[in-house]
């Protein structure tokens, strides 16, 4: 009998709030974290992005530590993890693992030309700094797999728990808006001139964002918010900077995840998709979902609220989707107006009450990677 896997704790640090309830309230109000920024240290021209103010990060961090040695991203990650480690009561022993997922970590450290700063740009150093704050006993595991990192980390945690290597895995995911990433996406001409509009006819590209999210993945059913029942991460084997035209990798990932979950596609009540708002990504997703018969399932992209938070996005969007399930509420896909993908999908236009028994989380990224994870609502049986 394979062990069952649950998520009992979640948290997130975003421009919309520093805990899950404040994020959900902002989403219900229709607030977006994406704003116009004029900052030549980040971009020569003005740009739209979802950025967290330094003052907010620092004043929240001061409440839990007076140590000044942490980078901005490290503070954001520690802030996401701190309450869930405390609430869970899980002992940080040899059966408790720590996974950190990110694409670029402390990449801003490269701007400074010193050996110490260069050392800090290493992802294993970032993970050690965060792990040591809490005193994890096991060696940190860093997942760096482009924009699927955050959700792939949940899948890695699930697999390690099933294999009985660990009983509990704390997962944190995070990325910052930096000159490095802004200039890169801009060089691809992938940036939207207005706040991004996933799946819309008028979409022109991404808005970048920054956030951290954290969850506890556990073999323990106590306090579980959701059950993780299937997962898969399949490469397109097609192109390193563009998705497959047929959505092959995403199609196979979802197919495998459903197979492991032992449910048919028609059981899925909601899809929390990737929806970056680039022409190719959104089109690819619509094609893959139609191939699976999932075109009528309510779907949203949360990029209109948070921008594309890279390695954080998959985990952040999972944290919010878990709230959808437990509050019986589908959240609008912000920025959407008129459908703009060639094969129809059922984009959520307004917040709507709905029971969700099963949901699917997907992500895709550079390098041709895709991840799909299937979640099941907890059935609280009466005695």
């Amino acid at each position, binding site marked *: 009998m394979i062990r069952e896997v649950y998520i009992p704790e979640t948290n997130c640090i975003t421009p919309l709030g520093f805990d899950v309830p404040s994020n959900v309230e902002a989403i219900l109000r229709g607030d977006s974290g994406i704003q116009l920024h004029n900052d030549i240290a980040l971009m020569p021209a003005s740009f739209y992005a979802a950025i967290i103010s330094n003052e907010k990060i620092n004043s929240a961090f001061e409440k839990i530590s007076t140590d000044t040695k942490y980078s901005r991203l490290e503070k954001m990650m520690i802030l996401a993890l701190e309450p869930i480690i405390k609430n869970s009561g899980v002992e940080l022993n040899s059966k408790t693992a720590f996974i950190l997922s990110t694409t670029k970590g402390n*990449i801003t450290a490269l701007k400074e030309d010193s050996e110490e700063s260069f050392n800090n740009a290493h992802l294993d150093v970032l993970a050690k700094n965060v792990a040591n704050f809490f005193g994890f006993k096991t060696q940190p595991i860093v*997942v760096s797999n482009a924009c699927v990192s955050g959700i792939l980390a949940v899948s890695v945690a699930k697999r390690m728990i099933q294999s009985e290597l660990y009983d509990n895995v704390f997962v944190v995911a995070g990325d910052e808006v930096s000159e490095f990433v802004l200039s890169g996406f801009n060089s691809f001409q992938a940036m939207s001139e207005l706040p991004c509009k996933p799946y819309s006819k008028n979409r022109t590209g991404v808005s970048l964002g920054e956030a951290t999210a954290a969850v506890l993945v556990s073999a323990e059913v106590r306090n579980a918010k959701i059950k993780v029942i299937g997962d898969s991460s399949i490469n397109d084997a097609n192109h390193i900077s563009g998705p497959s035209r047929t959505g092959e990798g995403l199609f196979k990932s979802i197919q495998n995840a459903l197979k492991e979950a032992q449910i048919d596609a028609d059981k899925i009540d909601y899809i929390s998709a990737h929806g970056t708002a680039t022409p190719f990504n959104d089109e690819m997703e619509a094609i893959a979902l139609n191939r699976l018969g999932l075109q009528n399932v309510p779907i949203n992209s949360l990029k209109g609220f948070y921008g594309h938070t890279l390695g954080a996005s998959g985990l952040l969007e999972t944290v919010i989707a878990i709230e959808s399930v437990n509050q019986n509420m589908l959240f609008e896909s912000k920025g959407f107006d008129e459908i703009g993908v060639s094969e129809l999908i059922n984009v959520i236009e307004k917040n709507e009450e709905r029971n969700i028994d099963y949901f699917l989380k997907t992500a895709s990224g550079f390098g041709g990677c895709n991840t799909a994870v299937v979640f099941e609502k907890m059935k609280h049986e009466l005695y």
Partner: protein
Amino acid sequence: MTQNKTYIQSYITIQNNEIVLNGTSVFKIEPTDFTDFSKQAYRNFDIQYPKFFKMDALSKLAFLGSELLLSPITSQEKEENKENNIALVLANKSSSLDTDVKYQESISDKENYFPSPAVFVYTLPNICLGEISIRHQLKSENSFFIFDAFNTEFLFNYSGILLNTNKADTVLCGWVEFFNDSYKAFLCTISKEENEKYKNENINTLYNK
């Protein structure tokens, strides 16, 4: 979970201008830089894949190692018209920092600002997994991990999980480290198929050979 035993099928090491396949040196040249070494290795093994020259050093390193391990498997499968399910599980210490530093240089001088998408795309360590997947048409599980040193226990355990849950038939796993012309690749193929060849050895002893 049923924990079936898994076996190392083949392994390869690339370091110090030399490629060692299953314990035998198959290519060695006089000390030179990695660009030159990789080009000479490409020619030596008569690889026909011009895209190789567009790759960054980390991808070239991972590509060369996987080429010698996977080509015998994938070409045979092609002949037999079988679909392969070879997962990729790679790790290193320096992520894509070698290319990150080059990209940072292209944006740090505002008078000489030339961010290039062809460079930016390689500022992710998992791009090398994409390159290998494209070359061998692997529509399979893939993930890239970062550790401060080669974590054999994790990589072997994680590969075992993929094999024992039937998420893969074979796993190509290992370490591909590249920074500033200093490099080491150690890759091996693992599957449930019994193989007595490396019975008394494990990834760690083979890596340190």
